[in-house]
């Protein structure tokens, strides 16, 4: 009896997984296939795989302001991620290497800040931005993004730096290396994996961020991809392939990063839950 039951069990487990995966992939499938259809063929056969690929949707999307939004998002996300990594690495080393008074207190506050919803910060920062005339500039938005990413980034890097064997550091210090040199020559080279992980997780967040971009980048020439595609759907309500082509292009970079760096995503997301990973 048990073997028959076991087979039935395995089959139902497989079936559950397949259904779940199909549900997870279905919207993505529709998005990508619709992007390669014409409006007419999409209406006729919305589910069917692409029989006769058409690039009209992509052409319509690219002729719109899409390329500019894309460029804005690339500039914003790359610069804020780089600045975050740099500032967080410096701070992480400061926290990990020296036991100064109040250190654990400051670290505790940083961890607590991870739960502050960005919408809480929105109004005061906007008022500030208006006062100094920095609305619709990348500078202020980058600063805000860096600030929002720092608590988790510092926390994660501090935890990692603490795992670097003290003997390595001591040897270098005895050789007369300055702490900057130790940081550059020993700490950073050992930290490639966590830095990449952090970079990937932060990139995902900035690339997909909507609220702050919506409020702070009102000028048409400064809009990001996410703000742009949100307005896209009403303008192209009669051209689904154009919408889907735009969405596909907006998603592509992240999916490529995901395809090649899945483990970095996983590691980064798990890092919050499992200390020191």
């Amino acid at each position, binding site marked *: 009896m048990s073997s028959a039951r076991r087979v039935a069990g395995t089959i139902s487990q497989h079936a559950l997984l397949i259904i779940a995966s199909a549900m997870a992939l279905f919207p*993505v499938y529709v*998005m990508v296939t619709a992007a390669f259809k014409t409006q007419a063929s999409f209406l006729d056969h*919305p589910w069917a795989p692409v029989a006769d690929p058409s690039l009209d949707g992509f052409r319509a999307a690219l002729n719109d302001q899409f390329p500019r939004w894309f460029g804005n998002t690339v500039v914003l996300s790359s610069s804020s991620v780089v600045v975050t990594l740099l500032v967080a690495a410096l701070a992480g080393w400061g926290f990990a290497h020296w036991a100064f008074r109040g250190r654990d207190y400051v670290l505790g506050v940083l961890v607590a*800040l991870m739960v502050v919803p960005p919408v809480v910060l929105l109004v005061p920062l906007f008022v500030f931005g208006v006062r100094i005339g920095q609305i619709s500039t990348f500078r202020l938005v980058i600063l805000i993004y860096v600030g929002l990413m720092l608590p988790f980034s510092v926390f994660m890097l501090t935890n990692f730096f603490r795992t670097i064997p003290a003997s390595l550091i001591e040897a270098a210090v005895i050789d007369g290396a300055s702490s900057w040199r130790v940081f550059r020559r020993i700490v950073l080279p050992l930290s490639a994996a966590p830095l990449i992980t952090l970079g990937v997780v932060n990139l995902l967040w900035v690339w997909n961020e909507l609220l702050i971009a919506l409020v702070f980048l009102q000028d048409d020439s400064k809009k990001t991809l996410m703000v742009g595609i949100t307005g896209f759907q009403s303008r192209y309500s009669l051209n689904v392939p154009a919408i889907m082509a735009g969405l596909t292009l907006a998603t592509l970079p992240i*999916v490529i990063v995901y395809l090649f760096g899945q483990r970095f995503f996983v590691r980064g997301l798990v890092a919050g839950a499992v200390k020191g990973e």
Partner: protein
Amino acid sequence: MSSGTVALSSPTRRRRLRLGRVEPLVWIAPAVAIVVFVFGYSMFELVRTSLRFDGQWTTDNFRVAWTDPTFRTALGHNARLLIAVPILVATSLLLSILLFEGLRGWRFHRWALFLPYVLAIPVIGVVFGQLLQLNGLVNQLLRVVGLGGLAQDWLGQPQWALWTMTAVIVWRELGFGIVLFLARLLSVPSDIFEAGRIDGARFFRLHRRITIPQLTGVIVFYVIVEAITMVSWVFNYVYVMTNGQGGPGDATQVTELYIYQMAFQYQSPEIAAAAAATLFAATLVLIAIFFRIQRKSGVGLDE
């Protein structure tokens, strides 16, 4: 000559010594400065704005916000979204255990199940907005399988819109739970499970007795993260799927959208600040409750 060298080197040495004391502060200074500006300054200003009107100190802003039916509706909707949390925990628990069973193709399934979490919420919102229309693919699918009677305008019916939204949120957030739980399971020494299997424990028994206790820590973490998400991170879904309106009517109005509209559409930053302060306080209460439960049940996040 020799006294010259001493004179040259001693200031350097002294400077190094002095730096030794404050050196860590130099390393953390840039991060602290940015965090103090983005969080410290804003939170201070938020409280100040929420307590002032026309140059006077007052609590009227809070009174106005709390008696505004729209704000109450919004808070109620956030509370209703919390229903997604147990659904998320149960579903991702089941799916992560299935992945952990190591069935053929589990790596592909892991990849597929996690993909929604990587996609941008605006992208998801627009795609689902299309799928869920009256003549969209979801309804077509229902008609094909003979459930055409259920077909409707999922985001356009006031009584359904918030539930539809909840389903979309679950669709995306599930991936995070699955990956989190699976990563934890893969780090548990496998002999624990082997011992259970040799004892002849079957699927449900094995996982209830052995797997779930191993996961308690990450489950608590996931519950906290998702509860915070439902209360204070759903703006993107609502904004994109309802064109920034929280409609139909106020059927999908949430606190974040209320704050956004108050500040940027109705030009009342004071009311928005009071609402934001309330939201923040609610988040803190939620976290405090969870940490209490967690302490009582004796579970650590890091174990």
